[in-house]
């Protein structure tokens, strides 16, 4: 069974069908890319997975530790906490007035919160909270190191350069300890060197953390290079699915991206 299975996902906004009967799955240790022209419904799928929208039809099942979680029935914070989904955004959503380190600590809020009896112990500096806090800081420091931002640990996240903010957001999502990492256009606005670094980082996460990665991306060089599986959406519907080589050769995909002969005429 797959880690995450999406079936018959349909979302309507008024008369517009933004996502139309889409199904796909995500597996441990695999990078699944969702591609498609602008307005194809990619981000809407992510918004559904993470609880921003409730789908009109469909089921999103997450299997974790022998339990099944139906994402469409869960509150947003439980999707992150219990089902184990974390995501990043097209337009970066760090906490701009917190330091880089604090951003990573917020992502570990739940473990700290449990250890601190709702912060009462935190105030008194109990040993259990101290050690939990120490572990959280160590984990955050390790991730800062992996994304090359150790020097910026105490800088306000909002003041970091754009490329650094992108990597910090991925580090933050990883600090939440996800089973599925959803990346929404992580390469947007990056230069070729930064894109290459990012691709290396995502591959590294896949290899070392053994989690499933869902990727929305327009930069085809990144997509084709790192994806194991590609789902192509157009006008809300799935038009193709398969390995990069398979998708690249699919006539429906080429038509969606380049237009058909009649369109051109």
């Amino acid at each position, binding site marked *: 069974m797959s880690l995450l299975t999406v079936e018959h996902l349909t979302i309507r906004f008024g008369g517009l069908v933004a996502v139309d009967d889409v199904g796909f799955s995500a597996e441990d240790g695999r990078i699944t890319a969702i591609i498609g022209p602008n307005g194809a419904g990619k981000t809407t799928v992510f918004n559904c997975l993470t609880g*921003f929208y409730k789908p009109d039809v469909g089921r999103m099942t997450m299997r974790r530790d022998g339990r099944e979680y139906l994402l469409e029935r869960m509150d947003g914070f439980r999707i992150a906490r219990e089902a184990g989904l974390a995501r990043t955004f097209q337009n970066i959503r760090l906490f701009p007035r917190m330091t880089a380190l604090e951003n990573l600590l917020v992502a570990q809020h739940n473990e700290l919160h449990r250890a601190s009896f709702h*912060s009462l112990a935190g*105030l008194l500096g109990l040993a259990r909270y101290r050690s939990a806090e120490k572990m959280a800081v160590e984990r955050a420091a390790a991730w800062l190191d992996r994304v090359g931002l150790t020097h910026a640990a105490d800088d306000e996240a909002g003041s970091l350069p754009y490329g650094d903010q992108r990597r910090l957001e991925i580090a933050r999502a990883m600090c939440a300890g996800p089973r599925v990492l959803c990346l929404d256009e992580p390469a947007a606005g990056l230069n070729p060197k930064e894109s290459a670094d990012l691709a290396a980082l995502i591959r590294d996460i896949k290899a070392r953390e053994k989690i499933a990665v869902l990727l929305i991306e327009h930069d085809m060089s990144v997509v084709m290079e790192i994806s194991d599986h590609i789902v192509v959406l157009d006008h809300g519907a799935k038009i193709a699915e398969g390995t990069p080589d398979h998708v690249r050769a699919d006539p429906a995909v080429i038509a969606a991206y380049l237009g058909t002969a009649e369109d051109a005429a």
Partner: protein
Amino acid sequence: MEYFLQQLINGLTLGAIYGLIAIGYTMVYGIVGMINFAHGEVYMIGAFVSLIAFTILGTFAFANPVVAILIVLVAAIVFTAAYGWTVERIAYRPLRGSFRLAPLISAIGVSIFLQNYVHLLQGAKMKPLQPVVTGGFVLAQDGGFAVRITYLQIGIVVATVVLMAAFTLLIQKTSLGRAQRACEQDRKMAALLGVNVDRTISITFVMGAALAAVAGLIFTLYYGAVDFFIGFLAGLKAFTAAVLGGIGSLPGAMLGGVLIGLIEAFWSAHFPIAYKDVAVFAILVIVLIFRPTGLLGRPDVEKV
């Protein structure tokens, strides 16, 4: 000089009360972006709970003032925090995500409700309390004028400083404080990282109400009389203090509270006392003209 010193002491004491209430306004504004106009009433309830608790202890002829105050403190915090929690749960949470003015109107409604509720239950008359803490020092003597600082005033300032330090630490260093700041900056993102936003907001209201309870207890001890209307003006002035210091800023709230306390004390000493509220609000207007974000507030820079 002696007169100045005396008014400084009085002003600081008053400012401590305003500051403690102002923190409740500023924290709630920070996290949900609304002015909790019922907060003054929550403070008034804190004062009443203190009065009732003292009266009950008095009927048992409880003698030790320190122990009595501690017991009353716990009672006031528990009951007042329960009110704060309930108000948020009933009047604000259902309106979250509604249009921006809805919770504000709801807050005014809650404020009127609580005032009348206490009015009906406790009557309109001032309820007096026997002085619990008496005595003090004479700091300086100049002819017939003695500068006095009472034990109560020392206690008030010390308690306020300790609470301020504890809250600053809590917001800056604990995971709860980080979650609160995260909710303040991006509520949806915080939820995506597994932070229970609704509960974090509830805790914020409870914390604000607990501080208001301390302020209410202090008021009861300091002035020795409570009625159902004290929350209105104190609430308004504490709100002013929060805006003056920069709403959303914890040290700003305290600074604003102290400033307003001092302005009131010095104005009352040198100018017609009836105009003291006019002076306070006039200064608010002047500060806001020149520093719209308050003294310690951060300007919202809009990115283009």
